[in-house]
């Protein structure tokens, strides 16, 4: 069963308009993000009472930055340690390669289904759809991912993929869909969270116990010890990591950190920034194969898929520090209004607005290129994302830099109205005499705008009344108010 993919989504403004019309969605989002925001803030204040949140952020950013600066070496170390631990390491340049590797491992074991730990990277590469095309069903076991999958839907938040759904919608999905793919939901299912969770548990248990192959991502990969780390809340991930005979972990190359000790700041920053908790309930680590315990065949697919492009981007490379906490989504006023689907990617919100263009490259052809190019503009540059990011990613600066890349990518062809306008403005604004001349037309301009167009502005907002004279005219006439 497929949840569909994001490919072919319209550009942000169009997708956003549709989402903005959904009052239920806006209500769900404002409520959910507001709650997480408040919880996070309490914990940040708590850290500040005894030590310093800013110092912790610096430490987290430092650990990730150090590994990225030395990425080639760290990855070779990781490969060597993993191999020494009995794991098989694969390298994948892009989504297609990674998907083919996972499919061939599953086929080699003759299975037609795998269980999955919630993983952003496997969504990024469309693994479920690729496996489905090979006749292999991939079952999501994270509760929220399960809701998304059963609803033939797409995730809309990094941490809470079904944030756009409310309880009664979830009940309806469970009742209609669970029976199609496994153990059905009980007939007397209510929309009580505990009842819904129990139905999911019963549905999933059957799949855990049956599956021979598990698929995961990793939050961190430690080069020194060859250890992968998964951080989660429900424990379903741990079931996938320990019950199947074979475990395949797809890991973006930016997940590597140097040493075990590097986890210290990261594991303190992540749960506080993401769920607003001091500690996440489950942290699983595994280092290759342990005879007689857990999976006896462990594969690690190290994935590039645009990451080395991002790394080569002087300003944008800091986005690879991201630990996918989703704090930037939860404070983003744009995300709060539009929801995650408008971003057309598994990475929505402020981080999505920079990560997608960095991974995919700007200036691409067709509707896909247009969608990617619209993302750096999907922000008012208010800076709230930078303020909360636990690893100090200066998202607003990256957004502005990417906007410049988008503009540059389209230079040379037939200039758009906007490009012409800015060229004209540059001429007028580099010489005050030209500006003063132009200002004489301000009143006229405003009157025309009010009557004819500037429709994007005036359909919902009034324009200010035109002043009788500009400031510079006033200054000249009155000698700066002295006469």
């Amino acid at each position: 069963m497929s949840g569909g993919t994001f490919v072919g989504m319209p550009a942000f403004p169009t997708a956003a308009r549709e989402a903005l019309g959904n009052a239920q969605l806006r209500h769900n989002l404002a409520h959910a993000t507001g709650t997480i925001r408040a919880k996070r803030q309490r914990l940040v204040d708590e850290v500040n009472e005894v030590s310093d949140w800013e110092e912790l952020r610096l430490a987290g950013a430092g650990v990730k930055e150090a590994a990225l600066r030395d990425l080639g070496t760290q990855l070779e170390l990781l490969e060597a340690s993993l191999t020494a631990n009995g794991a098989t390491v694969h390298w994948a340049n892009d989504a297609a390669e990674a998907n083919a590797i996972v499919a061939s491992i599953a086929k080699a074991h003759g299975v037609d289904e795998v269980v999955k730990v919630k993983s952003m990277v496997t969504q990024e590469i469309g693994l479920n759809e690729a496996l489905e095309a090979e006749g292999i069903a991939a079952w999501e076991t994270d509760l929220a991912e399960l809701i998304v999958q059963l609803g033939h839907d797409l995730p809309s938040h990094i941490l809470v993929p079904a944030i756009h759904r409310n309880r009664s919608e979830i009940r309806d999905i469970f009742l209609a869909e669970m029976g199609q793919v496994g153990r059905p939901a009980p007939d007397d299912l209510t929309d009580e969270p505990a009842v819904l969770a129990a139905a999911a548990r019963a549905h999933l248990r059957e799949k855990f116990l049956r599956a021979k192959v598990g698929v995961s991502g990793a939050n961190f990969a430690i080069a020194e010890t060859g250890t992968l780390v998964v951080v989660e809340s429900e424990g379903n991930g741990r079931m996938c990591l320990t019950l199947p005979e074979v475990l395949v972990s797809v890991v973006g190359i930016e997940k590597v950190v140097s040493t075990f000790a590097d986890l210290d700041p990261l594991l303190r920053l992540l749960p506080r920034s993401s769920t607003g908790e001091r500690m996440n309930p489950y942290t699983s680590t595994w280092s290759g194969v342990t005879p007689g315990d857990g999976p006896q065949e462990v594969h690690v697919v190290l994935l590039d898929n645009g990451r080395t492009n991002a790394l080569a981007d002087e300003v944008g490379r800091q986005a690879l520090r991201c630990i996918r906490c989703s704090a930037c989504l939860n404070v983003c006023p744009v995300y709060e209004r539009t929801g995650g689907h408008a971003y057309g990617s598994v990475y929505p919100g402020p981080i999505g607005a920079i990560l997608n263009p960095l991974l995919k490259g700007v200036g691409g052809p067709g509707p896909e290129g247009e969608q990617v190019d619209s993302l750096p503009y999907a922000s008012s540059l208010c800076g709230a994302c930078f303020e909360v990011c636990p690893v100090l990613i200066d998202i607003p600066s990256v957004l502005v830099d990417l906007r410049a890349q988008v503009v540059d990518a389209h230079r040379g062809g037939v200039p758009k109205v906007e490009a012409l306008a800015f060229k004209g403005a540059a001429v007028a604004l580099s010489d005050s005499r030209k500006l003063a001349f132009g200002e004489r037309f301000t009143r006229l301009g405003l009157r025309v705008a009010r009557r004819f167009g500037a429709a994007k502005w005036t359909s919902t907002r009034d324009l200010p009344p035109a002043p009788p004279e500009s400031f510079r005219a006033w200054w000249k006439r009155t000698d700066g108010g002295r006469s």
Partner: protein
Amino acid sequence: MRVALMVTCINDALYPGTGQAVVSLLRRLGVDVEFPESQTCCAQPMVNTGYLDEAVPVVRNFVDAFAGYDAVVTPSGSCAGCARHQHSIVARRSGDATLQSAVAETSPKVYELSEFLVDVLGVTDVGAYYPHTVAYHPTCHSLRMLGVGDRPLRLLEQVRGLTLVELEGADQCCGFGGTFAVKNADTSVAMGSDKTRRVRDTGAEVLVAGDNSCLTHLGGLLTRERAGVRTVHLAEILAATE
């Protein structure tokens, strides 16, 4: 101390009253503020929309206009933010070493009005009188890019006759965001209407901020909603007397 007023292109063309207020306020405080007439714009519209090449001549004009002053005061948090944080990016891209050093020279001297009053002049009581109920909206760029903190509030608290009411969710963006207001007009308006709803909830007669661009957006919504709330720039309140 030679002090220049950077009035900003929006204030120049649409809100001359704000510039006039800065002039009379600073004169009252003993500062003989000058207006370098060759100034135009800080280049923020270009920079924030990605037109960095187009920003180069505008930044060049900026540093030329303000060379030789000890301080440049502007009644706009976002324009001050652009000068302090983004001019160097434009200059670096231009590859022009002279421009780079001119920017390095000028940028640190650019102050948003409340910073200049509190940090440079060392005053919070500017002798103003404004007998109205006022809600303060901290604009994002003054709040996060510049870090003006509570300076505007400290200034407003000293204004005689003024009743300051608290605005819920004050630090959330109003949705203006420069060209964002047009490129993503629907989202911009959704953000703005949530803000004006909260402004109306305060019962204030006047909404004040340190940036006329955000106030254009919010004022445009408030008048369309017939909310009966006026928007006034901080400088105009601080300049007001009995």
